[in-house]
């Protein structure tokens, strides 16, 4: 025995040495283990545990928990500790499991080998080390700095967590560029426009559905898509038992399917319906006296067609009710509206009266549908103004603002911006905001809102300047922005682009370097905040699984690593800045990217978990406890506080006549030395004069004539889209019929049977939808849930580069069709938003 052992060992070693001498060592043949180490292993084997993190499958941002066994995610549920989503998670949350374990994820950094860029140029990506990737990026940035052209750097941001400012804001500023461009304008910015210019709130609202008796929903689908889907889905059974629900939407949404009233209006005419409802509320005397006030003589003088003397009405917490009536509402009867919107007069009246009678417990819920349109900002105002009429704003059973929370901003960048940076930052932004045709009046400040989709034109036309270095993260503008072909051109033009992403997508196709990103729900530190149910929560993103891919956290680790590389090249400002993100517990400055990620998070959330800084809401002992619970809840909502304290408008009142908008438009017009009317005309609005400042109806602006393009295209988002990132998961296709009217494994365009007969369209026909902008291929279906004269199709499919399941023939043929190929690049210019809805007509060709 002894002998044999000795012999075998010796021989093996001898052989090994022999090989090593011949080729092994010199050729780098590692005889030692490469894939393994022989450290002591712990096998848990005693079941798993629920770990707290956050879902960012949509901007509901639910606090969730992941069941983790042996380092692997098994299942997902809502975090029971959240008072916002109450332990619930929607169907999309589960698809995250198939994202994180998608074999097509980006696994290592890669670089392009084909110098030519274009839709038909295979990039030829090959793997590189993080070292090489970061060195290349740092060299490119240093070159900009050396040449004093840092403003030619652009950071494009898609979905983010609140760690965003590290990469989006601080890094861009310290390098010296004005060009951090967010995706917000392709989301739902116009939704905030109405609330801001009536009640001074530039934000998404929460809806007190527990106490509401009438819920009027405009182009939102709260039990299927954004926002607070988990919460509203939990509540909806209850809601339906105590409230009337009316849904305004040209197609039968999931929420409409369960509603008491479905109002399938002509796309884009929401404003007409809203002003008619206002007309009925006033003529029927159903407005809220406590909020709006009353006629001095106590009589109702709101009589159709009659002007009213402003001095006869004593207004309370609102401003301009009589002006609104005189300028817009007096003739906007249900009969007038019926023709505009294509609905029954009785239904309009019934809904208006139902809504009015429920009084302050009726809420008007504005979604993306009516507002992400060319003239959508006025729809946004008109629909939101109804909450003012009935006094449901800030009230029990009404529309609420977000509660207060106490997270901290990251340290300011100013001291770390050198002369080059300061000069660079003074240049104009690339998205055209603030120009005459793009007022982008975010929070009433001209030129402060982003015009995401217009960035492509800026890059193509080099206006205001060329772009030399770009970084995009968690975005796919090449797919998600209308008239996507412009993005092909724009990205082909940028000499150096980096894409930080979990999945390579159409944007990556045009990039030079790909950096593999950690998945937000399973592999990343961060936080998000959101509100519903009368609460706000701040919920933590945490790495909850063992990751076996060479990924890094997009918003923290990657900027830190770039900062290190820049420092090694003599530019230390960024790293010096990041080093000021001190860990509140140990008082230590971060030494590496991993420490930076967690210190930054602890820093920003310190007032929530450090009892010595306690300000309100849930109380934690320390970081460890907060991290385990995963979510902080605010104090409950204080109803009617703004009734007392005043609204954040020019008049401190709820404005039916928006002095706030008047001021903003005046500023913009003065800046361009012209009149407000000229601005409005340039921006494609119909209105002029005083009516520009009140909620009013504008004819929808739709591209394509009815004769050649008989259908108005109704785009809407699939309830399975995880921010457009789930197209490579099997479940997406297997359960696609959770979108009402859709079918499994297909991308469906839905036609009303009446139209189908007229145009000889059969169920299952392969068709092309063609607009003036482009075309797409999909499958036809006959369905009563769509208004005649329109064709409805979910957005989500049509990828030509996203992975094995997402495209039919990778790189060549898309699976299904991308709606953005047929939607033109148009804007609601006052808000800067991209138009998705009621903006284009199409024709159908059977193939």
């Amino acid at each position, binding site marked *: *025995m002894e002998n*044999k*052992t000795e012999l*075998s*060992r010796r*021989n*093996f070693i001898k*052989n090994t040495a022999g*090989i090593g001498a011949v*080729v*092994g060592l010199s*050729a*780098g*043949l*590692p*005889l030692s*283990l*490469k*894939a*393994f*180490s*022989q*450290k*002591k*292993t712990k*096998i848990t084997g005693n079941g798993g545990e629920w770990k707290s993190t956050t879902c960012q499958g949509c901007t509901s941002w639910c606090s969730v928990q992941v069941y983790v066994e*042996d380092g*692997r995610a098994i299942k997902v549920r809502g975090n029971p500790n959240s008072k916002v989503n109450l332990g619930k998670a929607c169907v999309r949350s589960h698809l995250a499991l*198939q994202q994180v*374990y*998608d*074999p*097509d*994820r*980006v*696994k*290592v950094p*890669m670089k392009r*080998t084909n110098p030519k860029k274009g839709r038909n140029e295979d990039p*030829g*990506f*090959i*793997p590189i080390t993080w070292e090489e990737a970061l060195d290349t990026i740092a060299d490119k940035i240093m070159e900009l700095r050396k040449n004093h052209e840092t403003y030619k750097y652009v950071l494009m941001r898609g979905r983010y967590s609140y760690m965003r400012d590290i990469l989006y804001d601080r890094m861009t500023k310290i390098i010296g560029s004005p060009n951090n461009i967010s995706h917000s304008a392709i989301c739902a910015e116009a939704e905030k426009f109405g609330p801001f210019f009536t009640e001074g709130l530039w934000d998404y609202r929460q809806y007190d559905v527990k106490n509401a008796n009438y819920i009027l929903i405009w182009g939102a689908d709260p039990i299927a898509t954004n926002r607070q889907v988990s919460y509203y889905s939990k509540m909806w059974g209850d809601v339906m038992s105590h409230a009337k629900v009316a849904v305004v939407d040209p197609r039968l949404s999931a929420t409409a399917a369960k509603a008491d009233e479905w109002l399938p209006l002509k796309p884009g005419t929401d404003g007409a319906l809203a002003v008619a409802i206002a007309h009925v509320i006033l003529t029927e005397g159903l407005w809220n006296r406590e909020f709006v006030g009353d006629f001095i003589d106590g009589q109702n003088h709101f009589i159709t067609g009659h002007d009213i003397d402003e001095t006869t009405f004593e207004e309370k917490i609102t401003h301009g009710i009589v002006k609104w009536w005189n300028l817009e509402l007096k003739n906007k009867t249900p009969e007038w509206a019926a023709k505009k919107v294509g609905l029954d007069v009785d239904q309009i009246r019934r809904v208006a009266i139902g809504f009015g009678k429920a009084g302050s417990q009726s809420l008007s819920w504005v979604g993306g549908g009516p507002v992400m349109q060319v003239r959508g900002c006025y729809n946004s105002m008109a629909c939101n103004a109804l909450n003012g009429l009935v006094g449901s704003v800030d009230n029990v059973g009404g529309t609420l603002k977000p509660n207060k929370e106490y997270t901290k901003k990251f340290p300011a960048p100013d001291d770390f911006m050198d002369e080059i940076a300061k000069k660079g930052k003074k240049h104009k932004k690339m998205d055209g905001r603030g120009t005459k045709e793009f007022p982008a009046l975010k929070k009433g400040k001209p030129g402060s809102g982003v015009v995401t989709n217009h960035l492509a034109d800026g890059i193509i036309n080099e206006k205001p300047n060329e772009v030399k270095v770009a970084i995009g993260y968690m975005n796919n503008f090449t797919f998600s922005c209308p008239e996507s072909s412009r993005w092909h051109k724009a990205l082909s033009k940028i000499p150096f682009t980096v894409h930080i992403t979990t999945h*390579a997508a159409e944007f*990556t196709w045009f990039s030079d370097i*790909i950096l593999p990103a950690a998945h937000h729900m399973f592999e990343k530190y961060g936080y998000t905040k959101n509100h519903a149910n009368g609460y706000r929560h701040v919920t933590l993103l945490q790495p909850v699984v063992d*990751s*076996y*891919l*060479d*990924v890094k956290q997009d918003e923290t680790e990657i900027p830190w690593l770039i900062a290190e590389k820049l420092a090694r090249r003599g530019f230390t400002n960024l790293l010096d800045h990041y080093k000021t993100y001190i860990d509140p517990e140990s008082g230590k400055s971060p030494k590496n990217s991993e420490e930076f990620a967690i210190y930054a998070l602890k820093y920003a959330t310190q007032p929530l978990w450090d009892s010595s800084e306690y300000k309100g809401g849930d109380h934690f002992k320390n970081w460890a406890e907060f991290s385990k619970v995963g979510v902080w809840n605010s104090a409950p909502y204080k109803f009617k506080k703004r009734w007392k304290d005043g609204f954040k408008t020019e008049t401190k009142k709820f404005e039916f006549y928006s002095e706030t908008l008047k001021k903003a438009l005046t500023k913009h017009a003065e800046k361009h030395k012209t009149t407000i009317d000229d601005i409005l005309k340039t921006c494609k609005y119909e209105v002029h004069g005083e009516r520009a400042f009140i909620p009013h109806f504008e004819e929808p602006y739709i591209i394509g004539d009815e004769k050649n393009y008989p259908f108005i295209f109704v785009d809407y988002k699939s309830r399975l889209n995880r921010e457009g990132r789930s197209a490579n998961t*099997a479940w997406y296709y297997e359960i696609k019929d959770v979108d009402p009217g859709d079918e499994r494994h297909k991308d469906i365009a839905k036609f009303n049977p009446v139209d189908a007969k007229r145009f000889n369209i059969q169920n299952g026909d392969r068709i092309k939808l063609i607009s003036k902008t482009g075309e797409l291929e999909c499958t036809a279906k006959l369905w009563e849930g769509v208004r005649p004269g329109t064709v409805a199709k979910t957005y989500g499919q049509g990828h030509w*580069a*996203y*992975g*094995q*399941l997402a*495209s039919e023939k*990778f*790189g060549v043929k898309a699976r299904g069709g991308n709606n953005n190929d047929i939607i033109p690049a148009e804007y609601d210019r006052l808000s800067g938003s991209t138009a998705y809805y009621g903006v284009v007509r199409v024709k159908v060709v059977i193939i």
Partner: protein
Amino acid sequence: MIQDILKTNTNRAYVYKILSEFYNSPQENVTELGTVLKTKAESLYPQLIIHINGHNFERNSLLLDFSRLFLGPFKLLSPPYGSLYLEKNSQIMGESTMDALKIYWKNGLQIEGNRIPDHISVELEFIYFLIIKEIESDDDEDMNTFRDKQKIFLKQHLARWVFSFTKSLSENAKTEFYKNLAHFTRDFIKAEITWMNE
């Protein structure tokens, strides 16, 4: 006799190890490794060496092919992960992956760096490790245990999917190198199974 086993095992160990290397991102030493593989395979399974030619390989074209086949970033043509063949969900980190991982754990091993536990190169290196353990064994019982472990691991993991994988690889590979690698891997594992069952 012992010398024979030892020689065979040493050769086997090398073949597994070099194959494992070949399924990692190609380095400068590809050609040299090929030469070693040839020597080792020749004395083990002479019929296999038709799959090894003495070409010099250009690293960049290998890298491109390697990426298309095994890495993406857009779509893997021949996924090198067991779970993609053993489970119906087309996912990494499946039940079968965890089973492999737990076997490594039981043998005192942890995955080093960023590797998916049922990546072909990891599974091949695991068998290499078991062969070395067999060689280093102090007694017959240990030797048999490690031989059995190789058999079982092949049977429960690698051999259950490697042939679908090599089929896909031989169809999708553009370069001679990966086509040959597919054929060699296929025939080698086949020969191994036969040899072990003898």
